[in-house]
Structures are given as C-alpha cells and as structure tokens.
C-alpha cells in the first residue's frame, strides 16, 4: 500500500466561486512540505476540501491516498485511512470533554487500522488515560486540559496545542497543519513547533500550511510551495522561504500576473 498523498489537477469551489484552480502536489510519508501563500489564496479551502467538508465542492481532479480516491469518502473514512487536519480555526463542541472525545476518536481510527471494520469498542479507560497523560506531558499540556470542553473557551494557543495533542494521539500518516502557528506568540510558536517536530519521522508526512515562515524555524521542510490564486506557482527548497522573507508576495504576484485579492477579513 502506498501512503503518499497525491493531488492531481484539483479544482475546488466555495458557494459557486472557484477557489482552487488546478492544483498538483504529492506529499510522501516521511516528507515535510510547506505550502505558503497570502491570505485568501485558498490554503484553508484546499485543506478542508482534502478532508471532505461538505461546503467545499470538488469540481474536478483526484486525490489519491492509500491507493484510493479519497474524494469519494466521508471525512471519517479519510481519517481512518490516516489523513489528519489540524484546523486553522478549530470548532468548539460545548459539553464534550477533550478526553471523552479523543477516546472515541482514537478508538475509531485504531479499529480501522486493525480490522478495517466498523467497530465501536472503546480503548480500555486505563490504557487510554495512561497514553493520554503521557502525550500531554510530552507536549507540555496541563492535566486539567483533558476534562475541559473541546475547544470551548480555549485561548488561541490552547486550541492549537489541543490540535497537536490530537495529532499525537491519532498517529496519522499524513497531517495537514493549517496555520497552526497563526495567532500565537513567540513562545507558543516554539512549543507548537517543537511538538510537531518531535512527531515528524518516517511514519508521518506533513503539509505545513503557513502564512509566515516562523513555524519553519522549528520544522525544516524539504519542499516549499507557493500558492497564489488557487495554484501552486513555484516549488523549491528552503531558499524559497528566504525569497519570501526578503521580498514578500508582491514580486511573485507581478511575475505571474495575479492581482492582489482584497480581503475584508481572513477566513
């Protein structure tokens, strides 16, 4: 089985507006890719489209993962295959504790790994608690976190750490991190960056979506891609981040003849 994520000529639209306009990208298990682009270029649209959000319509293209076209699958089936999305803006689920939710999620994902069938058996409580506590310690997350309602009233930094905790518990093969560094102060970026970098290895491929290269100081990507107006306009190595750092996106927009999209607010 091939655990690479292969995106071919993908077109995604939102409410009838084409946002992703023919995107090609392959992320192999064990590789770290960075996808950079200005606000509104379609980064989150790509991420949610890949995970199967119902509001994001796939107009054409293919996304192959584990030898199947995942575009046919429900979001939970994609998760069971080993795809993970750390949300730019995680959704609050009031009344549902992080621990309770994660136990159900981890059980669902793992049962798929072992026998591929729908199985509602939960990981034994003691085993789960032990594992959760270990991962929380590793990520420097407070014990009380587990009892809190999922993303409900979390600060920006807490939300992002909760996303990384989920990543650590669910052990996907490919993880997409959508601006996991945005809205965080320097210290929080460091903690998140070090946490992710500790998870990176031959078993995990990562697509880091980011606006600035800050997070990349902690996780050095082998590949860097620039997204403008729904297309990857350039791909390269680390040096591309240096170009962006120095010049911003404007010269690149000019080069590819793309007008700056006016954003009322960042989505």
């Amino acid at each position, binding site marked *: 089985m091939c655990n690479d994520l292969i995106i071919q000529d993908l077109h995604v639209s939102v409410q009838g507006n084409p946002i992703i306009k023919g995107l090609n990208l392959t992320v192999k298990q064990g590789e770290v890719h960075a996808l950079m682009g200005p606000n509104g270029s379609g980064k989150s649209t790509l991420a949610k489209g890949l995970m199967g959000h119902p509001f994001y319509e796939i107009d054409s293209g293919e996304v192959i993962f584990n030898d199947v076209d995942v575009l046919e699958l429900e979001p939970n089936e994609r998760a069971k295959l080993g795809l*993970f999305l750390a*949300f730019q803006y995680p959704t609050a689920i009031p009344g549902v504790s992080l621990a309770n939710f994660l136990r159900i999620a981890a059980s669902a994902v793992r049962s798929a790994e072992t026998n591929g069938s729908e199985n509602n058996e939960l990981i034994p409580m003691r085993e789960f608690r032990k594992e959760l506590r270990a991962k929380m310690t590793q990520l420097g997350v407070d014990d009380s976190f587990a009892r809190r309602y999922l993303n409900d009233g979390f600060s920006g930094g807490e939300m992002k750490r909760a996303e990384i905790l989920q990543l650590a518990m669910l052990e996907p093969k490919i993880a997409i991190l959508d601006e996991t560094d945005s809205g965080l102060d320097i210290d929080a970026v460091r903690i998140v960056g070090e946490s992710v970098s500790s998870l990176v290895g031959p078993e995990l491929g990562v697509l880091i979506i980011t606006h600035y290269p800050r997070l990349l100081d902690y996780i050095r990507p082998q590949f860097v891609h620039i997204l403008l107006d729904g297309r990857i306009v350039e791909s390269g190595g680390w040096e591309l981040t240096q170009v962006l750092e120095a010049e911003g996106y404007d010269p690149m927009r000019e080069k590819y003849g793309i007008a700056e999209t006016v954003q009322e607010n960042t989505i």
Partner: protein
Amino acid sequence: MQKGDFSKDFVEKIAQDEPQWMRERRLEAYALYESLPMPHTTEDDTWRRTVDMRTQDYWRRTRRHLRGFAVDNYRPTIGQNGDTSVEVPKDSEDAAGVILQLDGQHQHTSLSAELEKQDVYFADLHTALKERDELLRDYFMTKAVTLETTLKSGNIATSNKFDALHGAFWQGGYVLHVPKGIRVEVPLRVYIRLSEEQHADLSHILVIAEENSQVVILEDNLSTNQEAGGLHSGAVEIFAGQNANVTYVQVQNWNRQVWNFASHRAMVSKDAKLCWVTATFGGRLNKLNQAIVLEGNGANAQMLGLAFTDARQHLDVSTAQEHVSPHTFSDLLYRTVLKDRSQTAWGGNIYVYPEANYTDAYQKNDNLLLSERAHADTLPGLEIQAHEVRCTHGATAGKIDTDQVFYLMSRGLSYAQAEKLIVDGFFEPVMERVPMESVREELQEFVSRKLET
C-alpha cells in the same frame, strides 16, 4: 378493577368508600369539568401551540379540537389491591422506600424501618385517605394545583379542563410526608406504569416536606406495552417547608400512543431549597404546566428540564416562576433535542411580585434540531413588578452545526457518533446539575435509545 367512563355516576362510584369531603371535591371538580369546553386550539391562548404549528391551514381545518383525541376513548378505573405478581424493578434495591403502581392500581409499597420509626409517611393515595385524612384534606388540591389557578403568570390557564378531569376522577398516585427535622439521605423510588389499552392513568402526587426536612424522590412514568394507547391526566403537588431541601426527579417515558396532560406545581417556603428535574421522552402529545411559587424569603428553586422528542411527538410545556417574597432565587434551564417531525413549544414566564425585591430569576430554553422537519417554538417571558431584581432570560433553537459534525468526523467519528456526542454535549449543562449519578446514567440511557431508533 372496575372500568367506567368519565360520567358523574362513575365519580359517585369511585367516591363511595371515600370521606365525604373528598366526594364533594370530586363532584365540584366534575361540575367544572362538565362546564368547560374542550380546549380550543385557535381561541384559547394557552392551547394555541398545542397543535401542529407548521401550517396555518392546519389550524383552519382542525378548528377547535385536538386532532385525534377524545376523552371518551379512554377508561377510568377503580379497584384496590392490584396484581401482586408485578415485579419491583432491580434498581430500587438501594432505595429507602418504594412504590409501584400499574394501570392506576397500587401494587407495592415498602419503607425502611428507620424511616418508619421517624414517622415518615409514604403510601398510595387511597390508603392515605384512610390513614391521613386530615393531612390530605389540608393539602389535596387546595394550595398548589387547584381548580382555579392562583398564579399571576399569564401563560398557564385558569380553570384547566384537564385539571378538573383529574380532580373528579383521580385514581392512584401517592403521598410522601416527611416530618419536621427528618433528613432522609437515601432516595425514595416510585414506578408508575401503564400497560393496558385505553387506560386512563390519573395519578395524583403529593410531596410534603416539613420544616428542616430533606428528601429525594426519583419517579418514573413509563409504558410497559409500546402499543397500548392511553391517557395520562396527572397532578404533582410539592411543598417544601421552611428550610427544607427537596429533590424531585420525574422521568416520563410513556409510549408514543399516550396523551399526556399534567399540572405540576411546587410551593417553596422560607429558606427552602428545591431541585426539580423533569425529563420527557415519551407521549404522543404532551401538555405540561409546571410552576414554582417562591413563597418565603430566601426560597431557592432550580427547574431543570431535559426532553427528547422524535417521530410525530408533540411536547408543549408552560412554565412559571413566581417570586412572591423578597430575596428569592429561581433558575430554570430547559434543553430539548428534536428528531424527525416532532414539535415542541415552550413558553416560560417569570413573575416578580411588587414586594419581591432582591430577587434573582433566570430562565433559559435551548433547542437542538436534528432534522429539517422538526420544529421548536420558544417563548420566554418576564413580568416584573419589583424594582431590585436581577433577571435574565433567553431562548435558542438551532439545527445541528455542520462545522461541529465535520470537525468530529474529521477525527474518525461516524455521523452517528458525532451526532451523539453533540447531543450529549448539548444536554451536559442540564446533566451536570442533576444531583445523582444513577439518575444521570438513566437519562443517558434514554437519550442513547432515542438516538438509535
């Protein structure tokens, strides 16, 4: 057991072994019952939302009647000791006292020796009429649920046809009397069952907790036969005496063929505390009037409601929080989940009397719709006559959130698992205030069953 119909003759028959005062009260109620028309769903304000609310056309077509309902289709009964072969549920093992009733017939009573020694009285209402004449004469439909509503809150009908029906034909129910200073630590359990086709359950419940006493009652009402159509016309009267602490939990799970009409009212005295949990899962059509009256300074009441409707169930609840005295506190939280084509209407009113300064009153009703075709009406209300008052009220109704479902599914949960988690989370603010783990578990179980069907 004798079957009858809702006639004056049958009132006489029921009353023949009862004290004269009860016979008179029944006849008085019967006269009122006769004089009142069936509720008019377009003209009676308090019944307007007890019908299908989706189309005006429907109103025009049905005009005055509750569609599909006629009192005469159901049978009141009389009789004494029931069928003793009915088993007392296992979860009553730890209870300090148990009452079991089937089809209006009392089946079983037990009370721990300790409580008996402390003069706690716990008996079916017919036995109580013989053994506690004065107590009943004093309390039975005289102060809380009466034939003429004494509430100021405008959302609960005066002279309710079904309260009158209940007053005339009541059968079954129980009385719990906790004397002054007695603190009962272990819950008492009550099981009220319906099994027979066309049966009318007319249980009357009286809970009287005297000064400085404490008690917890867990009551469930359910159908043992899922097909049998029935009528429940019930009343609950709760008295929390000065500085008493009362917890009353009623879980209603009639089958979907039962028409359910009930008036519940609690009187809360000075410094008394009431925690009142009402959970509704069953019934074809439910019309519930529920009121608390905070009579004494420092009275404190929580009204917690949890409901889950499905299929074509209809649930109409009117609540009133009446603050008569200063320094009183009430907090109402009602949460409802709706599935399929079910409908709910909730109308709440907080009424603060002119003298009731330094009152805190809160009221919140939230509805979660799991289906496009479900419908929730919610109408919070306030009438404040005092000056120094802290009040909030609020209401929400919303469909299950696509982003929440997506977030959970993106972590591997199936739609059903995501929905269940969201529903559990939605009920959590009510659950976390339900005082006992065993009750929470029972409620969880009913919620899960509703989701699975």
